[in-house]
């Protein structure tokens, strides 16, 4: 049975204050040359399904709860 990793990211062009603030803090700690820091969210779901069925169920989860399509995109990986 698959474990699904569902990644929720901000769509391109949506400001990411958490990422920007984290980048600033990392720079203050002395990490130099950072090009960007982006925040994202990951849910690991032990889904009890396999293959396409598992993928479809995860996509439905994203549509109905995990992502807001106005600002977020999602991707699913089965492990």
């Amino acid at each position, binding site marked *: 049975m698959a474990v699904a990793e569902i990644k929720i990211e901000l769509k391109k062009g949506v*400001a990411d*204050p*958490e990422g*920007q*603030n984290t980048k600033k803090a990392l720079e203050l700690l002395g990490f130099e040359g950072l090009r960007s820091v982006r925040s994202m969210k990951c849910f690991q779901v032990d889904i009890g399904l396999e293959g396409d069925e598992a993928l479809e169920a995860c996509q439905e989860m994203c549509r109905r*709860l*995990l992502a*807001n399509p*106005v*600002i977020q995109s999602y991707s699913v990986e089965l492990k």
Partner: protein
Amino acid sequence: MMRPEDIRVCVLRIEGTNCEEETHRAFQAVGCDPEMVHLNQLTGHAPQASRRSLEDYDALAFPGGFSAGDYVRGGAIFAARAKSALGGEINAFVEAEKPVIGICNGFQILVELGLLPALDGPSDVPTAALFTNDSGRFECRPSYMRNESRGRCLFTRKLPRGRTVMFPVAHAEGKLMSADPRFVERLEDNDQLVFRYVDPEGRPAGYPWNPNGSEGNVAGICNPAGNVLGMMPHPERSLDPCTAPDWTRRPKKEGDGLAVFRSMVDALTR
């Protein structure tokens, strides 16, 4: 004709809601008969005696707070639970043009339910988002906003158009966003833009007057029918004039927030 004391208001909460007391008190202050109701009481997951039915109420309020810990996104879990158990009933309530108000977290819930902005009608998936403030911080302070409604929104009809009021804001995720490039314009055209953040002179203004970076400095919007209002600032925290930080310098008879609740009573008792 309905009398104010006949107006039954459902102040709906789940775990993590924390503004239900003030919201309940606001409706009491304008003479209504409010009741704090847990979502489980509407979905049948409660002892028989405490079960309630949404259709028995005349108005519905989603108070502020951090429902379900604001996990996933602000209001997302409350919305998912409400939709799964009584989505049809809430939609019927809105279609019957009964008043619905969502304040702060309640606004996030209405957006996640697809009931706001509803530019093209209610939707199964959200058509807007209330996302992290541009400052990346929780912004908590009194804020000024101007009534922009031309009369559509039933919650601001007792407030003159263009009047600036002061309500506190307290949120980290209040930046109203949409994928529609003409979003603010369409809200204005439809008379759905209800409150705009302004500076003390009443001019639309950016940060810090606009605490979150919302496009067009939008603080509150209603649905096309005008019976559903969502706003990030807290009118229920402005019932007593002494809650305004300048109350000794600008004596007022009452807090600015009462007008919002009184407008609703007026609309229902007219």
